[in-house]
């Protein structure tokens, strides 16, 4: 029951939004009157939700995602639904069926993905805050490329009920904004247990960021500064970490040997889960109509070929293959063993340090159309996927520029220590703003 409404009619030259709510109702509360953008894979009752795909064009959910309900309760005005890589599958938002989003810092470049629309909306000042989702880096990557702050919470701290699933065991909804304080505020609103999501924990986030990091130990993994990372990006990030040392933190070199197979474990897991999650799109209960004059299998195949993009079809097939009879042990089962090893590596490192720091992405934002080869696109996720595989919190915040484009500093923390991750980010942000 909204008491007021705001008018939301921005100049969306970056194609950040798929749907805008021109008259957005809002109430009073923690986010009273604040315009918040919601990524288009999060269900919003009465508002079209497409996941950036033709196969959900026209789909209007009859229910709100849990976090959307929390936004409304806190008085936020839902400004609109933002563009994304189709079903979250991508690192640039170029895989959207409705055209790519442009990077407000340089419109010849991508904004990152898959939450590119949310990042661009925030970076361009169209909204103060946005919700994104992060399966393998999809909040942190666009935050880094667009020069804003984005947090992937600890797995289970934010309800996934209503998030249209891509990879259930990896993804989280998270806050994006231009500063740490707003990210923290949004996190306060959306976190907490939801009885409709049995993977959610009762660990509400009620923290106010504190810039005091004296005595904090920061692990710096050699793999984050290795051959695959651009020299300039590495340099800018090192300087940022040095700044943290000046604020009283100490750095500890470390190594994550399981990084060697982290990306493979990630792609096997997410494509397997996706192949199952996306099988329900058959044009019968929602989406573009299946041809009821054809036979079931023919109609089903036809709807999916016509309405899923190439990358989505590729990942569905990779996942189908990975789960298929004879290959389950080689791929999916092995990927879960790999995950356990990655968790153990982090556990070992976190017994010596409090947080881990490094670059968010190996490069600055690519030019539009630059990455046409899927495997090289996947390799760009190498620094972000470990946090999803381990379920630990990770934030990206701007820490400098290369060729005029933003570079993201990534801070990862122990499970359920999102607060500490926010504090380290807050300390850095305050230090450089002086």
């Amino acid at each position, binding site marked *: 029951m909204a008491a007021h409404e705001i008018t939301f009619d921005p100049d969306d030259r970056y194609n950040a939004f798929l749907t805008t709510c021109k008259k957005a109702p809002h109430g009073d509360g923690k986010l009273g009157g604040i315009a918040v953008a919601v990524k288009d894979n999060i*269900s919003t009752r009465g508002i079209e939700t497409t*996941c950036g795909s033709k196969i959900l064009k026209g789909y209007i*959910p009859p*229910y709100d995602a849990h976090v959307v309900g929390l936004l409304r309760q806190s008085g936020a005005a839902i400004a609109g639904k933002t563009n994304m890589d189709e079903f979250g599958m991508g690192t640039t938002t170029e895989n959207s069926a409705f055209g790519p989003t442009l990077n407000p810092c340089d419109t010849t470049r991508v904004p990152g993905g898959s939450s590119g629309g949310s990042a661009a909306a925030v970076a361009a000042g169209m909204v103060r805050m946005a919700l994104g989702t992060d399966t393998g880096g999809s909040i942190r990557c666009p935050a880094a490329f667009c020069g804003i702050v984005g947090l992937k919470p600890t797995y289970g701290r934010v309800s996934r009920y209503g*998030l249209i699933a891509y990879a259930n065991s990896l993804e989280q909804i998270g806050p994006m904004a231009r500063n740490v304080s707003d990210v923290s505020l949004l996190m306060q609103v959306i976190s907490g247990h939801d009885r409709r999501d*049995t993977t959610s924990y009762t660990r509400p986030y009620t923290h106010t960021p504190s810039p005091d990091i004296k005595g904090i130990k920061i692990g710096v993994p050699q793999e984050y500064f290795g051959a695959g990372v651009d020299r300039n990006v590495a340099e800018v990030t090192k300087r940022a970490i040095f700044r943290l040392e000046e604020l009283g933190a100490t750095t500890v070199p470390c190594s994550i040997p399981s990084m060697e197979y982290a990306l493979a474990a990630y792609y096997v897991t997410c494509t397997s889960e996706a*192949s199952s999650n996306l099988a*329900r799109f058959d044009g019968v209960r929602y989406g573009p109509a299946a041809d009821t*004059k054809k036979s079931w299998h023919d109609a089903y195949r036809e709807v999916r070929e016509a309405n899923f993009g190439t990358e989505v079809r590729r990942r569905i097939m990779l996942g189908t293959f990975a789960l298929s009879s004879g290959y389950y042990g080689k791929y999916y089962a092995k990927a879960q063993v790999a995950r356990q090893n990655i968790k153990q590596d982090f556990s070992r490192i976190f017994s010596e340090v409090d947080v881990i720091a490094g670059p968010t992405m190996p490069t600055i934002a690519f030019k539009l159309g630059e990455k046409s080869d899927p495997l090289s696109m996947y390799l760009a996720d190498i620094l972000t996927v470990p946090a999803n595989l381990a379920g630990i919190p990770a934030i990206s915040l701007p820490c400098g520029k290369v060729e005029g484009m933003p570079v993201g500093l990534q801070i990862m923390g122990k499970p359920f220590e999102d607060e500490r991750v926010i504090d380290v980010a807050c300390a850095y942000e305050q230090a450089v703003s002086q």
Partner: protein
Amino acid sequence: MTGTGTQVIVGLEVHCQLDTRSKLFCGCSTDYRNDGPNTHVCPVCLGLPGSMPVLNKKAIEYAMRVAKALNCSILHESEFSRKNYFYPDLDKAYQVTQYDKPLAEGGYLEIEGDEGGEKRVRLTRIHVEEDPGRLVHMGNAERGKYSLVDYNRAGIPLIEIVSEPDMRSPKEARKFLNKLRATLEYLGVFDSEKEGSIRVDANISIVGSERVEVKNITSYKGVEKALNFEITRQKNLLRRGLKVDRETRHFVEARGITQSARSKEQEHDYRYFPEPDLRPLHVRSWVAGIVLPELPDARRERFIAQYGCSLNHARTLTGELKLANFYEKVVAADPKGLATPAATWIADTLIGELNYRDMSLDSVDTRNFTGLVRLLNEGTITDKSGVEVLRVMLDQRHTKVPCETPEEIVARLNLAKTAGDGGALLGIISEVIAENPKAVEDYRNGKNGALNFLVGQVMKKTRGRSDPGELNRMMVESLKNKEG
């Protein structure tokens, strides 16, 4: 044809709907049968994008009761998996079921073996899964065929009980199914009267030949029919020197046959993997706290010991929970006097009369029935009259005419035994002897059938009000006296 025996090997996979109030993974009501299509559906059971399952604790409690009653072992850790395949009634395009970590393994069910005595049918496993929606086929060749789907049934909790291939005949399969059904009823977890609440897949082979799976059996009689058809089909093939193909077939109840399901069943690769939205179960510790009610076998033994029932009667009466409860209610007023006649009249007469009228036990008024048994026990009416009164009582319920008590019926139809009126009876006996000289002669020549005929003629004249035993004695006496 070396190595082909004629022994039949049967295993069953039985799916029963658990009688919870809400569905397995959401709060939708399970009481959908009288309501319109798609009225018991929510984002979760409709499989809307973004929805997530939450497990119904009652379903697990019920399943564990069954597992304990059937002597299974509960796994230390049990989990749900996704079984992926595409069909319009499966709205997520996967069924949430249990694959490599079911709720329980092992166990057994004892049935009456074909050779007499108790036979143990071992179980492989028990697990919990969700029911898909319901498909209705429409249209015709000219206007185009299509399907209509109702998702009310989607998400109903099912328990699947898999047996080892221990049964040796269709009869044993039917007995297994009946015993299983009764056990689930006694446990309070299953309502067998709900349409479609039980579904059976059967695996059958002749020793030495390939195994055939028969799906889509939805009735108890259907199991025996389907298996009989299959055995005949398989034996015919073997007799002609042909091989039995390993395949899946569908049972077509209306025609009593099985048909090859070749087109639908291309090698299914279900690509099972653990359901990432659900947490594992550690429920082995719950077993100790489960208190089982009295089960069919125990009740049967008690009926024999407490009421003096014969083994056969006890088996029949305890074969259905409602029947057992009905019996005990009827005899409650006077167990000593009513136990035996009630057992006889329920098992040997009432059940048959109800089946004939397609009536349920629920429509029998316990007080009136007890009254009828009392009248019979006291000798007020003959057995034949008893049957007549029972039929009147049932018909009145059936056609909803206001119901009379058995006493009222006896009075109205003048059925009270005329055993006291020996004089009038002797007169009728004399009449019958005089009217049937040939039969009397046959009797004198040693044909006992003639005696029954003569007694029957008296019964006709007295409209069944005479006690046959008494009448028999009087007839023999009279014939003796007329000799000479």
